[in-house]
């Protein structure tokens, strides 16, 4: 046992048993009673307070998350043009430690050449470990970490999110992390200009905004026509009119959703971009027009079938 006192070493004081005799117990109960008294007072608000109710009544109250908070990744697209910032460089897929990212590069429909855009982007939310390395490595600021964490689903399928489910407008990220986006925005927009020059048509546009006429073959994968809009894996181009009608209906719903803010605060991993951001007037009008056309076309078809 250490008996020599070296400098910088202190021997802990075990106290003297004679001073106890029940007094330690009583003092301990005193501490607890003090907390009981404070618990009926105002809630603990500042970190220097050590007594008082510390919990929040979730979900009525939600503590705000700091800017750097990271939960699961999202893919950004430009509000004005609808173009995704992602160029399919595969850096995030390569760096991801649990290998949950699966990218398919887009090709120019005419020439077949690879273009700096994505055809499909699958991210397995249920295996993602939220390390944020993908967001750190991305040279184009295309993939970022979202704060949303209320993502529970009843089955596992909706947790494999595709390009539609991952899409968020840049304005959404700007409101999540204003400081980080302010530093990155100029560089990211410049790179986006460069990518757009090499993209043709609607290649590289986020599917909700690349809304062709219903009869055309879409460039984006089809979401299943379930009411919750759960994203499924990519399906081949529809051959039948019924499927095209469903696609149009979903695009219409997505376009309608981007007009109005989402009704509840919790975003679900569905195909709808959330945040209720105000869109530039011209695009809003075009989207509404497309929605009306799609609805009419769907109604006409169903009336025709019946």
């Amino acid at each position, binding site marked *: *046992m250490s008996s020599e006192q070296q400098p910088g070493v202190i021997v802990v004081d075990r106290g003297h*048993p*004679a001073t106890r*005799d029940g007094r330690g*117990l009583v003092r*301990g*109960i005193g*501490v*607890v*009673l003090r*907390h*009981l008294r404070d*618990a*009926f007072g105002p809630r*603990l608000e500042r970190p220097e307070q050590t*007594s*008082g*109710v*510390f*919990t929040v*009544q979730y979900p009525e109250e939600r503590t705000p998350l700091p800017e750097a908070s990271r939960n699961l990744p999202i893919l950004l697209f430009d509000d004005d043009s609808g173009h995704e910032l992602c160029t399919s460089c595969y850096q995030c897929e390569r760096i991801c430690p649990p290998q949950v990212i699966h990218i398919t590069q887009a090709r120019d429909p005419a020439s077949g050449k690879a273009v700096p855009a994505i055809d499909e982007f699958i991210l397995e939310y249920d295996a993602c470990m939220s390390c944020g390395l993908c967001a750190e490595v991305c040279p184009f600021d295309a993939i970022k970490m979202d704060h949303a964490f209320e993502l529970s689903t009843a089955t596992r399928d909706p947790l494999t999110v595709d390009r539609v489910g991952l899409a968020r407008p840049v304005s959404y990220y700007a409101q999540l992390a204003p400081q980080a986006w302010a530093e990155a925005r100029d560089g990211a927009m410049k790179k986006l200009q460069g990518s757009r020059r090499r993209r043709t048509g609607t290649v590289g546009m986020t599917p909700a905004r690349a809304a062709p006429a219903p009869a055309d073959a879409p460039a984006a994968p089809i979401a299943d026509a379930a009411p919750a809009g759960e994203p499924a894996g990519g399906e081949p181009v529809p051959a039948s009119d019924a499927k095209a009608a469903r696609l149009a209906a979903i695009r219409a719903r997505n376009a309608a959703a981007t007009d109005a803010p989402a009704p509840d605060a919790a975003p679900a991993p569905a195909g709808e971009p959330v945040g209720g951001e105000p869109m530039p007037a011209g695009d809003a009008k075009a989207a509404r027009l497309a929605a009306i056309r799609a609805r009419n076309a769907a109604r006409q078809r169903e009336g025709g079938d019946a």
Partner: protein
Amino acid sequence: MNRTIVISQILVIEQAPGWLVAALNHAIIAGVLLIGGAITMMLQVWVERRLIARMQDRLGPNRVGPEGILQSIADGIKMFTKEDIIPRAADRWVHLLAPIVALAPIAMMLAVLPWGRGLVAVDLEVGVLYIAAVSSISGVGLMMAGWGSRNTFALLGAMRSIAQLIAYEIPLIIALLGIVLLTGGMSLARMPELQAGIPLFGSSIPGAPDLGLGWFIFTPVGLLGGIIFFICALAEGERTPFDIPEADSEIVAGYMTEYSGMKFAVFYIAQYLLNFALAVLSAVVFLGGWQGPGVAWLADAGLGAAASLLSLLWLLLKAWGLFMLMVVIRAAVPRLRVDQLMSFAWKYLLPLALVNVASAALWVGLTEWSSIEWGNLLPVDGLAPWQRIGVAALVTAVINLGATRWVLRINRAPAAAPVVVPA
């Protein structure tokens, strides 16, 4: 008020047979007590959870019903709907009857407690003896649970809990004996009646107002006896720091391991109800029961019903206060190991309880015996009653205090010499 007459009036049965009226009488009283017990138990669980939560800087259940008061009902529904699992090797009948044997005696205990002025279900002359006997039967239920489950851990837990119950019943009863000596009888209904008046001196000072504060806990004998009794009640009810049988971190749930669903809930109810009954008993014996300021005044003014109601309120206040003290102790203090538990009972509480009985006997002698009974050694006849009480208080205080310090001193463990453990 004569309950028999009231019932026959309510029934408006002409010439109702006596046995029917008596049976209905008892049935109604029993029903009131049992329903009261059930509601008390649900309130207890709610109070405990919310109080402990507040002590831990959080709120506790507050979603089901206003402020979470219906949480117990939700838990009860959950318990009801759970599958009742009986291990294949278990002794079916013993396993089935154990919860009933654990709960029924506690319900029986409620019958002899005086709930208010004139509000006692059964006025037994030997109330203390009845309580002591009946509470022990509950322990048989625990043993049946441990044995009938045919599980080593359950048996281990049951053995430990029986050892604890037996060890702590002895100081419990002896502490009660001190008060039995003071009151000169074992009737529980009479004990509150003897605790009228002012603190310590009771009703012995002529002309003093009847404040209803002549509680035994203000006397040295009652103080030591009350503390010992409360600690033993914690152990009887298996509350922290004596909850080795209930929530053992090594052997899962002790004797309750193999129980699920409603049977588990019955054990739970039995434990809470026992704690409440013991709290009421402590209040009756040491804190004056239903005595309190205002009861005597209302009774003298002829408002008997109001006096009874106020007295019931006082008793419930005291009982709930003691229960909340149990909750606070539970939140603040870890549990004792089994051997430390036993040595605490045998080496601390039992000697003190015995000394307390001797003090009680001295008290009775000093306050009630005449000089001749003292063999003319003490000139007690010349003193007024309140003076005799004063002298007795002084003497017993000195004895009790000295005994406490002595017991604490001789139990102090020698400084721990480091044990060389073979590597």
